[in-house]
């Protein structure tokens, strides 16, 4: 042992030295570094989780946005459809009204025409009758033959009837 240089004092020194070194390195090297590594791991995990959360939020926001967009689009479409429908109904109404008015006007016109015709006819009859009477009187004054007279009156009346 002694020839190998083993010396109790030196051996104990080395053991103490190692213990001290281990303590100092633990304090100044391992502990700070391992703590920092753990801290870093924690932070990275946290930021990854945060990123995940943000991503989810973004996704949710996008979904909301999409939903709202679809809603708006649907609403717009329904509004357009309603408007179209209303316009169509209005158009039909208008057309019907116009047609009705036209029909009424036509009927009125026809009625008035008829009345005027009747009036005219009546006027005409009386006038003709008057005329005939005057003509007849003129004729009669010249050549009064009851037979001819009668015949003339009948002819006149027939002609009137044909005219009618």
């Amino acid at each position, binding site marked *: 042992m002694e020839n190998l240089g083993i010396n109790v004092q*030196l051996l104990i020194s080395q053991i103490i030295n190692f213990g001290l070194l281990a303590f100092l390195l633990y304090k100044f090297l391992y502990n700070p570094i391992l703590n920092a590594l753990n801290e870093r791991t924690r932070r990275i995990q946290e930021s990854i989780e945060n990123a995940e959360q943000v991503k989810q939020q973004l996704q949710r926001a996008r979904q909301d946005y999409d939903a709202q967009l679809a809603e708006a689009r649907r609403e717009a479409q329904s509004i357009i459809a309603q408007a179209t429908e209303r316009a169509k109904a209005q158009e039909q109404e208008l057309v019907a009204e116009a047609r009705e008015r036209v029909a009424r006007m036509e009927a009125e016109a026809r009625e008035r025409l008829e009345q005027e015709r009747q009036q005219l006819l009546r006027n005409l009859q009386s006038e003709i009758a008057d005329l005939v009477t005057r003509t007849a009187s003129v004729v009669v004054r010249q050549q009064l033959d009851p037979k001819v007279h009668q015949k003339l009156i009948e002819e006149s009346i027939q002609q009137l009837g044909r005219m009618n």
Partner: protein
Amino acid sequence: MSNTLKKVLIVLGVVGLMVGSRFIAGMDEIPPISIAPEVVFRVAGYPVTNSLLLTLLADVLLVGLAFVATRKLRNGEGLVPRGLQNFAEMSVEGIYNLCRSVDRRNVDRFFAIAATIFFFVLFSNWLALLPGMGSIGVCRTHEQALVNPVHLEEQPVESPLEGAAPGEHTAEEHAAGPCGVDDEGHELVLVPLFRSPSADLNMTLALALISFFVTEYFGFKAFGLGYLGKFFNFKEGPIMAGVGILELISEFVRIIAFTFRLFGNIFAGEVVLLVMAFLLPWLLPLPFYGFEVFVGFIQAFIFMILTVAFIAMALTPHHPHGEVHEHPTPS
């Protein structure tokens, strides 16, 4: 053709230079190789050896580097690592992950010891490879350089024999070094200021004892006296009893294996470097230096990983009805 000739000439030139260095810068004789560390000086009888000096140097360097590397971290900053801190984190994390891969549950309990073994052995191995570590020294007499000074007290008594002694010594160690002879005619030897602590059995034995006691401490702490059941196992027949005894023996053999594995590798490396430098001082030692750098690393790694493995084994529950424990023999 001329290219080949050029190559041949270059090779011949290098070889010639190497061989020539033997005559230009060669040593007359291999410096004395000592298994024991040499005492540089004594403080009140306490031998301060050259390996102890390098141990202290390694301590100072390690703690200093650690202090500088983690300064920001200890101030609560530096979550973004830079430079030295980055390197320190990489090393510590690498060792930590390695230890964790061996024993996930108990890694925090033994990590500090394992990592300190690695860093300390690595630094002491590599520092000893720096130029000047084995060559710069002080002149001491043989007796002064001895760690265990058997004859130190007797030296004054011996001095009357001085007349005969110097002649004998000079004949024996004719070219021991550039130190010559002291006033009393004693041969002086060059004691290097630094020597690798791993080439000193005091340090390797100290580490081996620490490794051993830490292992047993964890074993007893985890299982109480039941830990001994691993070694004294007479309930499962004679085979298991024999295995238990073998385990007990191997537990103690580990101390010796640890001690001499590290010592042998590093000490042999130093001798090889010395011999190569003696044979051809230029270029020849270079590949061996590279190899010693590798050996220095690998021995530090082995010391650490074996300690971790033994601690992990001690912390593994012993199955009374289980199979025989795998027990890798340290090599």
